[in-house]
């Protein structure tokens, strides 16, 4: 097949028809599959998107998705599945997409992941399933692997979209995430009431999954959230242009429809403690999913100057409180600096830099002390940031932040770095080059070098065991040192990923369901205390 010069949708359709016929006849060879070009993901033009917060990646068309799915070799050993933190049956859902069986594809994903529309967008696939994918390995380029994440997003959005067009798929806009309809494959089935009560602390991805899974077993579930809106990092951290809030809201609506109660503005440890929830308020089990919400600062001179933000503050003002709409629907102020440096190289740094672009900065520097190879951010975010004009300053790091007489930031003094031998994280260690100081003129600095555990739960729950870094210690069932108390996500793993948090939420929920079943069994004596709920 002449795969290389396929550019129009029409050509793509023809190619798909041809290949699909062959496949049905059992004649599509691996060599032919290799020849199918990686399918594009339409994106907002980078000049336009600098001025709006709409989603950048627009979602691929049905034809492109099916062609992409046909690139999959259906490997016997399916190394992709081993690369997936929650072992989604990738090979099978990709095969279903190739055949146009989208609902089935979605059901397969939902066996292991409750939030495919989210994960399809934010998972670092290039170091998970797509890193181990045979196709990528064959091309010696993980970006040429089967685009598993895009396919996941494709079916999830298809499921979210109103299903009015029958079997004909909605075109690219279907991915825009404005859909409001009930999707297929979202399991609302809930077992009969057990009379047991579960408290879920924190409404991030781990909490949402733990709530859904325990509710499904028939327990009475309440999520307690400190902020005034549920969703965790998915609403206050990851920006709209990468993860539309309507999609997160949809997932939250699903759990509330299942009967999960969400109480916002409730800070466990302050409003009530875990012990009070269990001993006085009648909760039989608890899942702690409070995330890693404490920003790390660098400890250098000038960090308290006006114009120095933690990425958390900057992104929260921008996302959760919509500061980009200041004066319209929002009254949360945010600084609109012209020259900004973001310190760090992870997703949080990319998000901050790209948000600064959208808030009108003329010059945005990303200052990172290692090289692009060591950056923990998703490859796609790095590319998007560059396209949007963010200037990468690698092998540099601030030594101090310089302020004027009014304590406003006017610049940073940086040192240059070189890479030494690998450190404990396996990445090459950055070593400052003495005497290499230079300055960059700025009016804001955003520090995005990481988050650690918030000590509030620790300070208010003496019976709970923590490690040195302040993370909760759990066993393989996500059980903590306290009876009936389970934990997962960033508060256990340190700042990690959405999928890992989800995975732990699921493991914990299974363990909680088992624990409560046992508890109910032993409590079957006539003294049942709360028949009225």
């Amino acid at each position, binding site marked *: 097949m002449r795969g290389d010069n396929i550019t129009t949708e029409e050509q793509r359709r023809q190619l798909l028809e041809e290949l699909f016929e062959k496949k049905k006849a059992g004649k599509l060879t691996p060599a032919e599959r290799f020849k199918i070009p990686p399918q594009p993901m339409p994106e907002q033009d980078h000049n336009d998107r600098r001025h709006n917060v709409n989603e950048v990646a627009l979602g691929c068309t049905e034809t492109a998705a099916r062609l992409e799915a046909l690139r999959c070799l259906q490997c016997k050993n399916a190394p992709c599945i081993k690369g997936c933190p929650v072992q989604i049956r990738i090979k099978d859902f990709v095969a279903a997409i190739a055949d146009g069986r989208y609902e089935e594809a979605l059901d397969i994903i939902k066996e292991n992941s409750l939030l495919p529309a989210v994960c399809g967008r934010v998972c670092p696939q290039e170091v998970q399933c797509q890193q181990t994918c045979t196709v990528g390995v064959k091309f010696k380029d993980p970006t040429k692997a089967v685009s598993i994440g895009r396919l996941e997003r494709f079916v999830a959005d298809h499921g979210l979209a109103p299903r009015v067009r029958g079997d004909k798929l909605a075109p690219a806009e279907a991915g825009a995430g404005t859909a409001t309809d009930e999707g297929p494959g979202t399991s609302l089935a809930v077992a009969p009431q057990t009379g047991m009560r579960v408290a879920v602390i924190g409404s991030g991805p781990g909490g949402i999954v733990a709530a859904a899974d325990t509710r499904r077993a028939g327990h009475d579930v309440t999520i307690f959230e*400190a*902020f005034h809106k549920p969703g965790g990092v998915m609403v206050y951290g990851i920006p709209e242009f990468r993860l539309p809030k309507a999609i997160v809201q949809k997932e939250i609506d699903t759990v509330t429809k299942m009967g999960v109660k969400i109480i916002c503005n409730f800070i466990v440890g302050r409003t009530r403690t875990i012990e009070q929830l269990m001993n006085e308020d009648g909760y039989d089990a608890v899942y702690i999913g409070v995330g890693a919400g404490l920003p790390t600062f660098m400890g250098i001179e000038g960090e308290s100057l006006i114009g120095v933000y933690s990425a958390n503050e900057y992104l929260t003002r921008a996302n959760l409180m919509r500061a980009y709409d200041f*004066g319209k629907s929002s009254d949360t102020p945010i600084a609109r600096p012209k020259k900004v440096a973001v310190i760090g190289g992870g997703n949080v740094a990319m998000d901050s830099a790209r948000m600064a672009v959208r808030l009108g900065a003329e010059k945005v520097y990303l200052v990172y002390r290692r090289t692009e190879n060591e950056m923990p951010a998703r490859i796609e975010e790095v590319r998007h940031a560059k396209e949007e004009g963010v200037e990468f300053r690698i092998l540099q790091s601030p030594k101090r932040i310089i302020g004027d007489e009014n304590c406003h930031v006017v610049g940073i003094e940086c040192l240059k770095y070189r890479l030494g031998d690998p450190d404990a994280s396996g990445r090459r260690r950055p070593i400052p080059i003495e005497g290499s100081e230079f300055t960059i003129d700025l009016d804001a600095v955003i520090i995005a070098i990481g988050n650690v555990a918030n000590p509030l739960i620790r300070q208010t729950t003496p019976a709970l065991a923590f490690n040195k870094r302040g993370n909760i210690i759990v066993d393989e069932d996500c059980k903590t040192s306290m009876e009936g108390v389970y934990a997962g996500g960033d508060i256990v793993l340190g700042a990690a990923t959405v999928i890992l948090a989800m995975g732990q939420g699921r493991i914990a929920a299974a363990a909680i369901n088992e624990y409560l079943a046992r508890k109910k069994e032993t409590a079957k004596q006539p003294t049942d205390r709360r028949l009225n709920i």
Partner: protein
Amino acid sequence: MPHKIVSKRQLSQDIFTAEIEAPLIAQARSPGQFVIISINNQYAERIPLTIADADAGKGTIRLIWQRVGKTTAELADLQVGDEIANISGPLGRPTRIENFGTVVCVGGGIGSAPLLPIAKALKDAGNKIISIIGAQSKNLLILEDEFRRISDELIVTTDDGSYGRKALVTEPLKEVCQRKAKPDRAFAIGPAIMMKFCAEVTRQFDIPIQVSLNTIMVDGTGMCGGCRVEIDGKPKFVCVDGPEFDGHKVNFDLMIKRLNAYSSQEQQAYEHYKKFSRRRHGDGPGWTTDNG
């Protein structure tokens, strides 16, 4: 969970107080703690306010605020029966209440509100209480009767001399510190600049002073760092490490500058609100609007 306003009163020209339903917070709070509120829609500004008092039995908390910006003006426009969408708390560490001996409590302007429950608790713990409360002028003075009731001695000052002694609070504070029976401890709550000078006065006499800082906040749980101040040269988060700190260690100059970081945008939001809000009856004097 919306929170209903049970009662509301105007204490002076721009100072209001309301009793608001918040049963869990009423039960959990201790003197010195605060809440973060946002009034209506989900993108509203979040502001911290100290819990002036609470009635756990009735399930209400009392807030006192001064109309200085958009959110406080909007709050002032709410009436009994209206609801506040979001209140979270109680936040911050409670005040350490002990029997220190003689304590001098200095409240400036609206700062007298959060000071009152602390002074009360100190009194109950057996301390001798000397209170100094001050305001710019008579019509901004609040809680005089309440302070008189719990204080062994009360000194009232106004900047313009329209009531009480014409002085800044630091003047009588200095005199009290000079007395033979030197106070054992001081508490000061008010504008940052006032707390700064109170700290300087007490430093000369080697009297420890607690101050309560009211910085800009977002989450109030330690998540953003926007509330950070320098204590003894090190960054601390007011919402979780405070709000009370050793006044001799606070870098007030930096804090004062940080407080003004958003002032132009805040002013803009406030002007906008004043222009477009329909002001309701019962506000007493104060700014007027086109819709008066």
